[in-house]
């Protein structure tokens, strides 16, 4: 009996370390090159990150059923950012890494429909049902945000703003690190805040 229980503990411990390695051990670093990837968007067009090498790029991890994501979409905050920086030639990729059957997963036609319904304005909504891209970037939560400079180096990663809450009333007055980083970069300055612990729902790999 004791051996059996000890074995279960050992298995639990092993599984934990392995699963931790999948995300916690990987990821990207500020100032370093980001991993390239190729993913289809909801309309079926295929995008390769390095094809946008001459542009500023935003990656936004999405799960429309997550209360923290709803906070930023129900208030129109995320759509506003997508539109504002889209006009400034920033390539904004929204990425869904939810696995089929898990919360937030969408078939391509559902993804198109909900993007229209929410009046979201990303450059493209990318589908990553295998979760490979999410894991490569160490995306842990939704929304988890990344800002990439021309040439493919990482300029910001982490939380969208400084108010970790699910309350839509907290959008106003929060310090938005994504718009701040983009404004810094577009003004030719260096990014003041390069990382902030992200908050949200776990990505449903």
């Amino acid at each position, binding site marked *: 009996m*004791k051996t059996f229980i*000890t074995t279960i503990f050992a298995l639990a411990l092993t599984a*934990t370390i392995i699963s*931790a390695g999948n995300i*916690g051990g990987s990821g990207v*670093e500020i100032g370093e090159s980001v991993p390239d990837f190729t993913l289809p968007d909801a309309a079926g067009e295929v995008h390769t990150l390095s094809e946008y090498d001459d542009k500023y790029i935003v990656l936004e991890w999405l799960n429309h*059923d997550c209360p923290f994501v709803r906070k930023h979409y129900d208030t129109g905050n995320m759509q506003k950012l997508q539109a504002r920086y889209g006009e400034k030639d920033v390539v904004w990729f929204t990425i869904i890494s939810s696995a089929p059957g898990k*919360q937030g997963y969408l078939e391509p036609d559902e993804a198109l429909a909900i993007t229209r319904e929410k009046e979201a304005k990303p450059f493209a909504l990318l589908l990553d049902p295998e979760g490979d891209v999410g894991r490569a970037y160490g995306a842990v939560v939704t929304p988890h945000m990344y800002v990439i400079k021309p040439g493919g180096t990482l300029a910001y990663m982490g939380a969208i703003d400084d108010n970790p809450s699910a*309350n839509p009333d907290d959008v106003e007055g929060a310090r938005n690190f994504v718009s701040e980083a983009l404004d810094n970069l577009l003004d030719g300055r260096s990014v003041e805040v390069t990382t902030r612990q992200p*908050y949200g729902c776990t990505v449903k790999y």
Partner: protein
Amino acid sequence: MLPRKNKTPLKPTLAWILLAGFCSTGLPMQTLVGHSGTAIAQTLFQANPEASDPENRVDVTFITEESRISESGETLWIGVHMEIQDGWHVYWRNPGDSGLPTRINWEANELLDPGDIHWPYPSRFDEDGVTTYGYSDNVTLLVPAHIRESTDRTTAQLISADLNWLVCKDICLPESAQLMLETDSDGSLLSFSESARGKIKDSKSRLPESSESWSAAASLENGTFKLTVISRDENANIPDPETIYFFPYKQGVIEHTSPQRTTRSADGLEIEMQASRYLGSEISELQGLLYSEDGWLGDRMLNALEITFPVN
């Protein structure tokens, strides 16, 4: 060798926490619940985003350990008792990689002046490469309320509060409740019962405490924190290294998923852990609680040692 208390043959602490994490939120659970559980919960949430009480996954009540309000100048401990549905959990002051701590907004009150939440030590949940800290089954959060000078202590409704919390399984739902601390006509607190007294006593025993018997220091090199705790007197009980886990009070300081390696030193312990990718450039101290099933003191059981590590 200092005396060790409650030494159990299975060295269960960390393993229990890990196993608890797996049963509550981990992979086996997801496999069992899978699709249908997700679908049902999602439907409820979408139909009614501000779920009314009967639909909440957490039932919250105020409890007190005393039957009456005592004298002015003293403290009334208000327990926020949360009964959590199977498989779901709520969060500690540092929720870890995701989640949110429970929040309480007290209405301004003439008799009682509630302080910050005192958080009993949490459990650790590991799921899909994400580590969070919180509570499953049930927990009693504790709020010390200073009793003010007040002419009116006969009021039936003493104080009210809005509570907000996030409850998660494979998905997360924000829930809320409005609670009232009330008395009956002869001034007895309705929140009191013998079982309430027991729950508060139990929760108090789980609160972290600092101790004169231990000193601490830390260094940060190449993205790794090395924490050192040193026993300062005979009352310090050096626990088995395998029973130890450091819960940081703030997010973004350590990599929550990374394994913590604890080794015995001559007069204490050394614990190594990976610094967070989100750690800013300067950090002068690292604060949190060191949990051990064995306990940290010789003369009484203290599982959660509150420590501030100055960082060199």
